[in-house]
């Protein structure tokens, strides 16, 4: 046996874990029931007869299985998680406690309205904060995530145009946009046209204005943008778009940089989604769930989707199919069953109340300060294409220019894994070659930032010097580089007994 081989494949605290299909059995269970099985005669002919193939495990095995799996994950709880545009900030545990209060966790969405007034109170209070923080007119709370919120905003625009009797076909999207922007516009039947960026990393206002016309339904702009810069000319862009009868959609993914310091409503925005799982700290949970309320201008508010909560004197009323008949006739419809991500609303509201108006402003300031500190501490060793464009906002953007021949962003990213970090966002935005987008967030201490800067500096220098060990990084993680080509060429998406051992 060589030095790094063991009988089990384990390496001390780094533990291998088989699949539940390899350790469970269909006759084993981790749940005991009080009640006995009974006859099911009336379902004769509809009963499931063949084995399902679902393994069961005892409770002790289940706890161990998932605890072991959890230890193969990186997480904010373990360290700085600098994914640009993802706002991986600390997730306060008070929020988890609040979401689990029985009056929130254990209520049915179709209970009589008199029995869920506190739930409507949460939605109303959070809505008030979101409207006030953004300086907008109304908010649609039901969208389930950021991209769902984008769709909500775009459908409001489409409905508003239809109400005017216009069929405009084009949405303009800057080339630096998140992929969800063009995907959303295309989904709603719009033709997507790209607007270039200037050499300083902002929307080319002259090019945008030149393209405006009666066929343009609107623009989708991220502000602060995905290069980490504030769009200085946002108000002028809004005015120009409004001038030709279009609407302005703002991707609010980066709201964390400006919350409490800038109200998007003051910049002429008509619709913006807010990722509660970014700015307002609801946990990302390994990919979701999210929540994407959409704030709306007076021009778009009448078209908001059902349902929504309305205050009528001392009580709240849910405006839905049953109660909407006499007003809100222009609503474009329903986007999901029930009323949105209540479990995220409670968490976000607990977070917002904890910070208050003063704390949220401090959030933006510290997030921007931390990002600029990283930008200026690393621009001598990593190419920062827009460092000359002024201060960045909440994220610092670097490129792969200057790395040794054959070395690229992926090598820097994988090197950072060995240093104990989750890599930054890589190869996005597309306007920068080999982009590395670093968003530290406000919940990192100076000590934590200094160590991260030291690590990235070290890895960047190795990439510039052509250190071959970087090409095979990571070396110390539970797995080394995974063969993504194999996974896509011969997709194995479920476990099968007859393929076991492959």
């Amino acid at each position, binding site marked *: 046996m060589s030095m790094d081989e063991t009988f089990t494949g384990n390496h001390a605290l780094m533990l291998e874990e088989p*699949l539940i299909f390899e350790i469970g059995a269909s006759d084993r269970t981790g749940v005991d029931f009080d009640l006995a099985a009974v006859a099911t005669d009336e379902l004769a002919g509809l009963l499931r007869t063949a084995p399902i193939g679902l393994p069961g*495990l005892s409770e002790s095995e289940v706890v161990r299985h*998932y605890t072991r799996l959890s230890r193969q994950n990186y997480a904010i*709880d373990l360290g700085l998680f600098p994914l640009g545009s993802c706002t991986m900030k*600390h*997730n306060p545990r008070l929020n988890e406690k609040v979401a689990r209060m029985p009056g929130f966790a254990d209520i049915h969405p179709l209970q*009589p309205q008199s029995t869920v007034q506190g739930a409507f109170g949460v939605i109303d209070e959070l809505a008030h904060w979101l409207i006030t923080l953004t300086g907008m007119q109304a908010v649609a709370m039901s969208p389930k995530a950021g991209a769902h919120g984008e769709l909500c905003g775009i*459908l409001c625009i489409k409905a508003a145009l239809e109400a005017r009797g216009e069929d405009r076909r084009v949405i303009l999207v800057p080339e630096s946009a998140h992929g969800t922007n063009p995907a959303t516009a295309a989904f709603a039947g719009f033709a997507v046209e790209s607007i270039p960026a200037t050499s300083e990393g902002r929307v080319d206002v002259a090019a945008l204005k030149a393209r405006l016309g009666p066929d343009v339904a609107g623009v989708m702009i991220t502000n602060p943008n995905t290069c980490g810069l504030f769009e200085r000319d946002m108000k002028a862009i809004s005015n120009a778009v409004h001038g030709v009868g279009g609407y302005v959609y703002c991707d609010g993914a980066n709201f964390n940089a400006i919350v409490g310091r800038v109200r998007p409503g003051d910049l002429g925005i008509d619709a913006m989604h807010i990722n509660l799982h970014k700015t307002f700290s609801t946990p990302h949970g390994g990919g979701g769930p999210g929540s994407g309320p959409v704030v709306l201008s007076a021009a778009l508010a009448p078209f908001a989707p059902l349902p929504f909560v309305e205050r009528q004197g001392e009580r709240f009323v849910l405006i839905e199919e049953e109660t909407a008949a006499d007003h809100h006739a222009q609503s474009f419809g329903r986007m999901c069953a029930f009323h949105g991500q209540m479990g995220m609303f409670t968490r976000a509201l607990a977070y917002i109340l904890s910070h208050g108006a003063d704390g949220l402003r401090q959030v933006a300031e510290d997030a921007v300060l931390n990002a600029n500190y990283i930008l200026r501490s690393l621009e001598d060793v990593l190419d920062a294409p827009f460092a000359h464009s002024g*201060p960045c906002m909440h994220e610092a953007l670097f490129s792969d220019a200057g790395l040794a021949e054959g070395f690229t962003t992926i090598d820097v990213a994988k090197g950072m894994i060995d240093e104990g970090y989750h890599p930054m966002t890589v190869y996005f935005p597309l306007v920068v070659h080999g982009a590395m987008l670093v968003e530290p967030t406000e919940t990192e201490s100076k000590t934590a930032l200094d160590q991260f800067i030291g690590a990235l500096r070290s890895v960047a220098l190795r990439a510039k010097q052509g250190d071959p060990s970087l090409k095979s990084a990571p070396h110390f993680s539970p*797995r080394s580089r995974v063969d993504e080509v194999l996974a896509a060429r011969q997709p194995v998406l479920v476990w099968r007994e007859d393929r076991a051992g492959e």
Partner: protein
Amino acid sequence: MRYLPLNDADRRSMLGVIGAGSIDDLFADVPAEARLDGPIAGLPLHASELSVERHMAALSGRNMAAGSVPFFLGAGAYRHHIPASVDHLIQRGEFLTAYTPYQPEIAQGTLQMLFEFQTQVARLYGCDVANASMYDGSTACWEAVGMARRVTKRSKALIAGGLHPHYASVARTMSKYTGDTLVEMTPNPLADEGAALIAAIDGETSCVVVQYPDIFGRVTDLRPLAEAAHAAGALLIAVVTEPVALGLIEAPGAMGADIVVGEGQSIGVGLQFGGPYLGLFACKDKYVRQMPGRLCGQSVDATGRRAYVLTLSTREQHIRREKATSNICTNSGLCALAFSIHMSLLGEAGLRQLAVINHARATAAAAALNAVLGVTVASGPFFNEFRITLNADAREVARTLATRGILCGVPLGRLYPDRADLANDLLVTATETTSDADIAVLCTALGELLS
């Protein structure tokens, strides 16, 4: 502030490194007229953990928790007992505070869990493959309609009257913008709609969307519908809002459904007033490249060890942009984890037992209600949910019983406000959490109210 580690000395020193005189200098690109010079007026300032907890507890206290009263609601959201270990494990910070597993070397925990989840869902639904989850059942249902359009190159979807009206409503909203034509059957709890659906299929039909068990609780054989759809070149989409049922009744995939979607909330995820929930999405192997949403696949690492990785991402928006199969990005990862843990605890034996118990509790409730004057229980096979007709408006009855601390069911009038003929109908659900005492309280109260 307890979530912010920087102090003023840190801030000064960092501004020095940056070469900025003040924080305001960092916001210099914000036009003067849009700058706010202090906290926004009219909003409260920061608060201690204790005071926030008190405020939220007061709001929580104004709601009637399902577990505190006799409770009989369903209609797409179900109250089941969740083992304590589920909530403990999903709160492991390595799951709770991880991002989407784009860096597989340090996300094998989430990825392996998703691979197991996909396999569990595929087997539960009787399908070849499943994705790594969608927002919820209603959005998964719409995505399936869009997928059927891509597969068949047709855009006329036939929507069964037994589909949850919220799901149908979402499809109606989306179809307005995508150019799909929806042919919606009129909901009719009194007649089996199988024959009418089959008669409505034609050469332009992309898919037939049918719920199983349906919104009225009825269980019907999907096989004749699958055969008719396939004969016309259309897909059968089955929608399952109560996955526990599939521990007892045949899987839709095994009955010929091409795409099976639904709500996974029943297993591992609490009621939470309607969200976040868990969209399940499964289909036949041959359609996998038209699927929306994330997929986790098995591969190997550079040393040949088994490893998992997100795959087939050329379908997705971050690669394909305006040509993506869907604009979806976020999934419902943590709810998928809860589902997968609960399902691993149950296993096949536990799931089958849980399903039989649910059916038994509902059968007992139906029998007891049938003996109440003024109540008529609908006939025909059901799983854990059934329709009853009262001799009074069911919405009024539900409101009145709520004031007496009984949550008696979902009035169909709430779901179909424009259907006077359904105004007296109530959907009643019983699960393993429903006790004999709960049923007795409901029967007594209904008897008093309706006589």
